[in-house]
């Protein structure tokens, strides 16, 4: 029990952020017209590509003789970048078509 309480106190800020973000995420999406569901899903997909930052940190910290970490980290950076860049470009392509009409 003490352990759990300690954990909560230690990560108080993070727990607040998590709870507020859950509500914010639901609130922000709630008013989206169904027309935009596909671009929205794609846009959200690009945003979780923020995981790339973790990959960069891992990569940057790897010792130059730890080949396992270097290779896996390198792979992670590539995959994360694919997620971010691909996600944003695809979303932009979809939305570009909507705009042309007006």
């Amino acid at each position: 029990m003490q352990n759990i309480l300690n954990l909560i106190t230690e990560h108080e800020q993070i727990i607040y952020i998590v709870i507020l973000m859950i509500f914010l995420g639901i609130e922000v999406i709630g008013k989206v017209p169904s027309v935009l569901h596909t671009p929205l899903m794609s846009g959200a997909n690009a945003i979780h590509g923020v995981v790339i930052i973790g990959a960069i940190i891992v990569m940057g910290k790897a010792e130059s003789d730890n080949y396992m970490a270097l290779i896996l980290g390198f792979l992670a950076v590539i995959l994360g970048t694919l997620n971010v860049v691909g996600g944003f470009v695809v979303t932009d392509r979809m939305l570009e078509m909507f705009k042309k009409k007006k």
Partner: protein
Amino acid sequence: MSHILTLCYLIGSITFIIGLKMLSHPAKARKGNLVAAVGMAIAIFGTIFLYEEDGNKLGNYIWIFSGLIIGTVVGTLIAKKVKMTAMPQMVSLFNGMGGACAALISVIEFQHIAHNLSNDGGIIHQGILVSIFLGAIIGSISFAGSMIAWGKLNGNIKDFAYGGQQVTNVGLMLVILGIAAYLLFSLSPENAYWFYIIFGVSLLYGVLFVMPIGGADMPVVISLLNSFTGVAAACGGFLYDNKVMLTGGILVGAAGTLLTILMCNAMNRSLKNVLLGSFGGGTKSNAGNKEQGSYKEISLNDAATVLAYSSKVMIVPGYGLAVAQAQHTCHELEKLLEEKGVEVKYAIHPVAGRMPGHMNVLLAEADVSYDKLLEMEEANDEFKNTDVVLILGANDVVNPAAKNDPSSPIYGMPILEVEQAKNVIVNKRSMKPGYAGIENDLFFQPKTSMLFGDAKAALQKLVAEIKNV
């Protein structure tokens, strides 16, 4: 220096929220996407140049930049080349990449901990261990699941269901959680390799989890996996105490979950129903037994005449149109009819196409004007003033059973009430039921006539015929 990085992350977090918000307004959506992308770039480059741990800056710039360049070039090329109809699998593919990225980060960080442990018996921080495990588990499930979903939508992987599938899945999940709990409290250099079993079983779980789910339900699954990856990214945020990863990840996790539920609602199905796949077999057999009348076919010539002499035509595009990639031909037909003084509108069901909103994207690609697209409620008000409804490859979304037949599996689903119009022409490839696997009474009504054929080929012929009328 680290203050500037904090500022970068703050900007990143705010742009994600604003970006998502703007993505919910048709006029601002594109800008919103751009705002989020700029925020992402700031956060990424801030990390590369300003991140410090224990006073040490990041190294391996060559590796980092080559990774970024390869990812950018390949990602841009794929994203620019993909056809609009293939959009759902594209999202799934990119989502899988993000999941794999999160899982790899966890693997490397775990190796780090295991390495320190065997060297000097360093202290294990259980909070960190939990986020590493969660990142690995959720990331791998998301990766494996997304790859299967991608394969299914591409048509490379067939549905595969087997008895006891739910028991197996629950069993696998228990194995994963059991090993994770065991390692959490008794990690030592000797049992560290157990971690890779978690990793492997999670991948297997992801495959088995998506395998039995039908191809038409993939959008729901992709949306769900999308929110999984968000949570996996947030685990990374916890691991590095990195607020931008945390906010971005949780934001997508929450929004993705809601979007998944919205999609299920639009199809009148519960998420549980989609995931456990109890919809397929059972209902199909008993609906198939129902007595059906006969249907009548219409020739291209007649169809062309009926359309050309109407004053108002409503087009109902569906999955079949998307598959046949007939959106351009459809727009051609629309222009031709307009020239002849016919008023043409499109009635868009929320789940028409392969994903909610997908049909709007497809028609927008074909230059169909935005104000010609009517959402379901508007369209339902206009059907009674409509002379001809032309249904192109849609089925379940126009099935009157959803309104009249309480025993139907789709009962209660909002539909386009096309039977209010004077005439209905249905273009389908055959009399086969739609993905819900049920017969459609609409096809047997006296005012309905069938025009068989692939949507694109049929439309091309129809356009040619109308030119002659």
